């Protein structure tokens, strides 16, 4: 099989592959708002190792769509292409409340060591410095879903106008929009939550799982060229270091070709820095 133009891959594509691999065949999968990268991953899983998975086209609630391209807004009806039936949105939320949603993808403006996510505000409720858009359905579905995959394309530590380093991955979030593996005092069982919470994290630098003892993120694989030090520098907390940190298993050429077919408009690249996107990884 000759696959044109697939002699390299880029960070968005590597992330999509890593995210796709968190899906098991037969999983029920939902993804809501602001979705190019997770949707690329879901479509990829569906077209490779997880053909019996079940997923809905975001808030449009079409079943197993096969869109010719991924739109810049997840509210666009191209996400209903070949979907059948088109459900009512509440049918998916009900399914999640029944404990039948296997996996969902969540990101966060802040992400703490336990996988708690903040998409609500920076600052405090009394003094909001940045009002973020909100968590959509992540606050409640995060309590119900069997597991969720955390993803972030901003695993970095920008320097603010005041000269401070501002992390996405922080010791603790300003506001818990979506609960992770535990709060500071109680784990999910103690909280009485139905779902299992986050079990894996895919960033632009690396992938984590969680240390079963402490529920803290555990560094598992490094993307090509990334060092442990680089991860630690860009992480506002001290992650657990796995005994065997390896390089992130590379994508296959077929996976990369599929990704480019799934998302010909490259909407999955939105939000990445130009320099990150310009870096080409060889197979």
């Amino acid at each position, binding site marked *: 099989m000759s696959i044109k133009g697939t002699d390299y891959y880029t960070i968005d594509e590597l992330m999509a592959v890593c995210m796709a691999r968190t899906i098991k065949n037969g999983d029920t999968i939902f993804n809501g*708002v602001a979705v190019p990268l997770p949707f690329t991953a879901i479509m990829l899983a569906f077209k490779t190792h997880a053909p019996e998975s079940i997923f809905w086209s975001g808030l449009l609630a079409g079943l197993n769509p096969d869109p010719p391209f991924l739109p810049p*807004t997840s509210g666009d009806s191209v996400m209903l292409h070949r979907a059948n039936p088109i459900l009512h949105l509440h049918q998916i939320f009900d399914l999640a409340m029944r404990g039948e949603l296997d996996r969902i993808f969540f990101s966060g403006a802040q992400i703490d060591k336990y996988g708690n996510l903040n998409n609500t505000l920076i600052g405090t409720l009394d003094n909001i410095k940045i009002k973020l858009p909100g968590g959509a*359905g992540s606050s409640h579905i995060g309590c119900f879903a069997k597991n969720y995959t955390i993803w972030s394309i901003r695993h970095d530590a920008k320097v603010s106008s005041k000269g401070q380093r501002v992390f996405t991955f922080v010791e603790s979030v300003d506001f818990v929009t979506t609960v992770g593996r535990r709060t500071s005092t109680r784990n999910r069982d103690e909280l009485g939550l139905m779902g299992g919470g986050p079990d894996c994290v895919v960033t632009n630098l690396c992938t984590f799982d969680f240390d079963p003892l402490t529920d803290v993120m555990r560094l598992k694989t490094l993307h090509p060229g990334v060092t442990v030090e680089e991860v630690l520098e860009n992480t506002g907390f001290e992650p657990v270091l796995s005994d065997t940190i390896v390089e992130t298993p590379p994508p296959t050429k077929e996976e990369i070709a599929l990704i480019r077919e799934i998302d010909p408009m490259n909407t999955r690249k939105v939000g990445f820095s130009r320099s990150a996107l310009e870096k080409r990884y060889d197979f």
Partner: protein
Amino acid sequence: MGIHSSKDKVCSLSKAVSRIEDGSIIAVGGNLSAREPMAIIREMIRQGKCNMHSIGGAHGVDIDLLCAGGVLRRVQNSYVGFEADFGLAPNYRRMVQQKKVIPKDTDCVAVLMQLRASVYGLPFMPMKLVTGTNILDLHPEYIVMTCPYTGEKLSLLPAVKPDWAIIHAHKSDPKGNIKLHPPYFADLLAIEASQNSIVSVEEIVSEEEMDKIGATVPYYEVTAVVELPFGAHPTSCYPDYTYDRKHLAEYVKLANRGEDVFRKEYLEKYVFGVKSHDEYLELVGGHDALEELTKWNQGTEKWCELLGRNL
């Protein structure tokens, strides 16, 4: 809810909107970039509506513009923004940070259950336990209950009964039967849960025609219908037209330049500067520009071009 048994629901935009009282709880239809009742929203701003409370799921320019126009005091939505494409909602963000708008951030599932409670005539709905988040700090009205059957803990969420659902749909007949094409988002629920509903439609058709195509919403749930072709612009109304991404880009750009710029260059122009919806349509490009938005169904290439056009 509310039984609107009159068989003459056709109304002018200004008269329909004049019925919405300041301080109302409103459920705005559509979702993110899709089928939001933008023409009604612009009229609400023109009429100086204020102190309202919105309840809903993931929205975008509708809630942001309602904030900018001074209509909303409380926003109980699960998301207000422009996704990865254009980022944060500038007016919403600014007004929240200036404490002019009170954020009551909620969750899509909570909205569903709280509207359901109203539809079922109940003071609350139970829900599988939600805890561990600060969303609960914003919602002291949630109560934890021990289930008398299983002993498990459940969250109780009080009913939310909007005073008005504000919806854009495809067709109605003069009685107010509404034809809505999927995706429905939470619109059917919003109409059922609300005391009153204003529905703007692309086209009012005869009762006979509606009988043929089959209604989605029964007329007695609808207070008033207003015929406003392209009434969702700049959001989409599939299958009729896609969204005007270029207009939204301009919107966000102006909004990011601050309150004064946005007022002068957007509100004064597109909201206060027009006397009617028709004038608005002329201003955003008129027939040719709007016709272009209907061409998404000419094929993938055209659709891609419309959505991806270089800004």
